[in-house]
């Protein structure tokens, strides 16, 4: 029996689609058509993961997430739409694990679900993280690419590490700034973030203009791709 996934979406077609395809991937599915029903269902059924549509008729998706987060740390993946980046960032900053933009490909959604489930399982902080041809040895603070050691400044290393321990998950600008620069003025730090992402890409990407490891999520943040 695979993980239990609760789908909260008012569109019957989307629920049906997710049910069929996710069941085919070995998950078992629960469904709610409204936000309030979804909150209750999280309490009653204790799913392993929630797929939450942001455009529910009865409640704002942000509110559904807030009510779930009051007592549950269940991973939540939100379904957003384009041109709604501000709300997406808001739910990510208030505790959603990841997002996917409608219309989405099923492979992409399954990958997000797997990453979220793995992080939720609190896999003991693996000391060595490998993304593509880059290896990050957290115990030794060592980063290698194709076996060659890459020299990173302390901030570059912190930034890469923040993304690496969340590999596969989107990190919003706010989350990265908080983790790397702490309580510094956000606007100034957001500027540093952009600059340091550029520096990191020059060191770890094969072609910095067409990055394959550190991916920009427009209007949201960055994602270190997880190849596992």
């Amino acid at each position, binding site marked *: 029996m695979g993980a239990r996934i609760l789908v909260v979406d008012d569109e019957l077609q989307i629920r049906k689609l997710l049910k069929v395809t996710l069941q085919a991937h070995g998950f078992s599915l629960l469904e709610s058509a409204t936000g309030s029903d979804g909150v209750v269902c999280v309490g009653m059924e204790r799913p392993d993961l929630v797929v939450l549509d942001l455009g529910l008729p009865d409640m704002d998706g942000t509110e559904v997430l807030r009510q779930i987060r009051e007592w549950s740390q269940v991973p939540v993946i939100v379904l957003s739409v*384009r041109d709604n980046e501000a709300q997406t960032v808001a739910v990510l900053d208030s505790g959603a694990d990841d997002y996917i933009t409608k219309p989405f490909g099923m492979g992409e959604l399954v990958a997000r679900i797997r990453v979220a489930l793995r992080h939720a399982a609190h896999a003991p902080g693996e000391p060595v993280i490998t993304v593509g041809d880059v290896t990050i040895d957290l115990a030794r603070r060592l980063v290698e690419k194709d076996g060659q050691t890459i020299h990173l400044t302390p901030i570059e290393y912190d930034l890469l590490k923040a993304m690496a321990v969340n590999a596969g998950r989107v990190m919003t600008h706010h989350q990265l700034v908080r983790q790397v620069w702490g309580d510094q003025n956000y606007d100034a730090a957001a500027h540093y973030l952009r600059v340091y992402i*550029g520096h990191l890409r020059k060191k770890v990407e094969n072609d910095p203009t067409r990055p394959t490891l550190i991916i*920009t999520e427009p209007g949201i943040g960055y994602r270190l791709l997880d190849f596992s």
Partner: protein
Amino acid sequence: MQISRFLQGTSRSRHGWLPYLATTLAIGVLTILLLRVGLSFQLANIALLFLLPVLFSAARWGFGPSIYAAAVGVVAFDYFFVPPIFSFSVSDLRYLISFAVFLSVAILTATLALRLRMQVNESRQREADTAALYDLSRQMTARGDLTGILEAIVTHVYGTLRLPAWIALPADGDRMSISARAGQPPHDDGVDETICRWVYVHGDTAGRGTGRCEHTDQIYVPLKTEDVVRGVLVLDVRGQTGALLAERLRLIEAFAGLSAVSIARIQLEKEAHMARLSAESERLRTALLDSISHELRTPLAGIIGSVTGMIENEAMLTAEDRRDLLYTIRDSAMRMNRLVTNLLGMVRLESGMLSLHKRACDVSDMLGVALRQVQDSLQHRTVEVNLQGDLPPLRVDDVLIEQVLVNILSNAVKYSTDNSRIEIGAAERDGTAILTVADEGIGIPEGDEERIFDKFYRAEGAKKIPGTGLGLAICRGIVEAHGGGIAAERRASRGVRIVIRLPVD
């Protein structure tokens, strides 16, 4: 002019005692001169000479002084020159005939002079009126907007007539609203809206001196062209005499006529513009419907066809057929998604709902995202990226600029053949970031460099390749919202180069 200036004197000193004094003096001088030298003259000649002061005063000062001159002249002539000299005698009564002649000359001359003077005055007034009207019309042609024209009218009317003036135009519903005013009447009771309305509806003048609504201190003149009343000119005529008012009314009406024509010109211009706009939007709607119905139905046909085929002929399809159909469904759906994205973008741009979330962004980053989005279709193209090393960050809405880049890159792929090259460049020059995307595709016909950015416009050679004509229009909308510009250049070899300019700040 000499004559008119000479005659002008009459009106100025019509009621003074000076003409009489001058006449007396003139006759006195004439008498003394004649006494000194003229005793040798014949009586008839002397009598004729005494006509001179009569003529002069008649022409210059009118009836009173000329009759006086005739009387004094006859008395002086009789007393000093008719024998017995220095005395009046009964026989002198025959000189009453001379007096009658003098008198006739005086009256006739004075009448002629008066008529001439009136004509001069009238033509002078007409000349002033014409000049004022000409001035107004010249000022009004110089103004292209309604407010400007109304201002010009009231200012000019006030300046010419020294009467405070308003112009009321019809407002919403049955109301009239003051659209322009000049001059401050001593007691500003404002404009009587009822009279205003009446004048507007009936197209007749009303107010003081017009026989209608005499109780008000204002005069209401319709601004009328043919049968349409465009508005009402209101003048404050407090303290003006009836005669003066009647005299001015003609000019006021001329002003009103001229103003009406100008207002009509602006209003008709506006109507023509609206008609043009609505024709244009009608054309766009038709184009939109044609384009969308085609662009939406084509992929839908692909999806519905493939799906029904799979449902109905499930057993007959090989695994390969099935995969082909599934790819058709996926590609059709993606095409529809692109269309919907572009349509929404267009609607947002058109409705002014596009809000820019600007933040500092790296060109290379945005380019990377865009390239990633179109990476599947770029598989059979050689992409060459050429970025200036020290490009400054741009303050832009990265999501939107990426949409621009994706649209342009998609076009570069769509209109070129497999294995052709796409060159992407970015550089900064004088505070402007210049992004270029050059392809080796079918290019654009000469003269179409601007038009390809128009909504729904598709170049002749492009029409056989599916598309809505929305992509580049959206690009232009987004880039211009950022204060930048976008242009297309025909490449010397083949294909097209799209150049985006964005301000660096």
